[in-house]
């Protein structure tokens, strides 16, 4: 009996891990001009978590960008240095650049971090999921606005 319960629990956990995140609905947002003024979550992000996310490999930011990350030996030079992002752009402008950079420049190589439509041949483990969650986007936005020079 106990074993059966454990098996069911395990199966449930596995299923949860494999369930397509298409289940996770994207939250609606409104673009005004070249910005998304309102937070995707309705709350303010956490800048410390945001910095950690920017330098994390799975976010891929520093594959292309460099920035004020002296501890990171490997940074890219395909994209502008992130230093001073908060001086160049408002919070809402930064949010749209993360959510869907292609909305502003159809030819950009910057991936749209909060979009699941219009993509081709997405691998099974990533299908139906945005690259980052709404919370993660807000954390990164909260961090980027602090980058002033």
């Amino acid at each position, binding site marked *: 009996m106990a074993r059966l319960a454990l098996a069911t629990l395990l199966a449930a956990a596995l299923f949860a891990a494999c369930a397509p995140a298409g289940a996770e609905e994207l939250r609606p947002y409104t673009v005004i001009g070249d910005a998304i003024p309102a937070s995707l979550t309705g709350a303010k992000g956490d800048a410390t978590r945001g910095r950690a996310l920017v330098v994390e490999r799975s976010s891929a930011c520093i594959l292309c960008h460099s920035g004020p990350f002296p501890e990171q030996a490997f940074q890219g*030079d*395909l994209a502008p240095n992130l230093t001073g992002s908060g001086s160049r752009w408002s919070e809402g402008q930064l949010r749209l650049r993360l959510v869907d950079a292609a909305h502003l420049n*159809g*030819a950009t190589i910057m991936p749209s971090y909060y979009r699941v439509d219009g*993509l*081709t041949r*997405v*691998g099974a483990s990533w299908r139906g999921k945005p*690259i980052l969650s709404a919370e993660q986007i807000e954390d990164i936005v909260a961090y980027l606005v602090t980058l002033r020079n």
Partner: protein
Amino acid sequence: MKFAVCIALLTAMSGAALATEIPLAERRSGYSFMSADTKAMQDEDTANPGMLFVLDGEALWTRKAGGADKACADCHGDAGVSMKGVAAHYPAFEKTLGKPIDLEGRINLCRTNHQQASPFAYESRELLALSAYVAQQSRGMPIAAGTDPELAPFVDKGRELFMQRQGQLNLACANCHDDNWDKKLAGSAITQGQPTGYPLYRLEWQSLGSLQRRLRACITGIRAQAYDYGSPELVELELYLMTRAHGMPIETPAVRP
């Protein structure tokens, strides 16, 4: 409304214009992006770990196999003569299949049709060793694949695949290897993605690997669904890459970081 459509069209057009194929004079092998140490490893046969596979391949070349109990050498003789320049022309059009096959595919066709043996698995030691041995006979010779007119539609498909954005990161091969090959991705050189050295020894893999393995790694890197080994799409990509590298010398077995 009309204005918005115009802008959308303009952006779409600038997107197309951005991807420019590399002018002949500017083509560079991955070799030219490497450190002096790694270059020396490729240049010195005694230091090149790929040569161990070539030696294995040389042994396999004369080993009898399959229901026919024949070795490659029984039909082809001295590889130094019969295989010289062969790899420079692959992938080649295979009439019985009506489509191109790569060197690994050709070796496996010889296994099944002429040796009556089972095909080697992709990335098996045997297949890597034999393809490295055969390709090494073309070392230094200019790549000349894709000139057969029957290949034209397949070259076109390969080019389309190369230019097509895909995966969760929504990138095309061309975004990196045509447009940004002089740049760095998280500290490592992007290079032009030239297929000159395969199969090659990659330090990161600590092994020899085929061109298809490399292509699957780049496809997974952009979080797209990797095509299966031996799939028509991978062969078409290989073919396009070889025509894109027309005239560049074969380096097999190369070394890459």
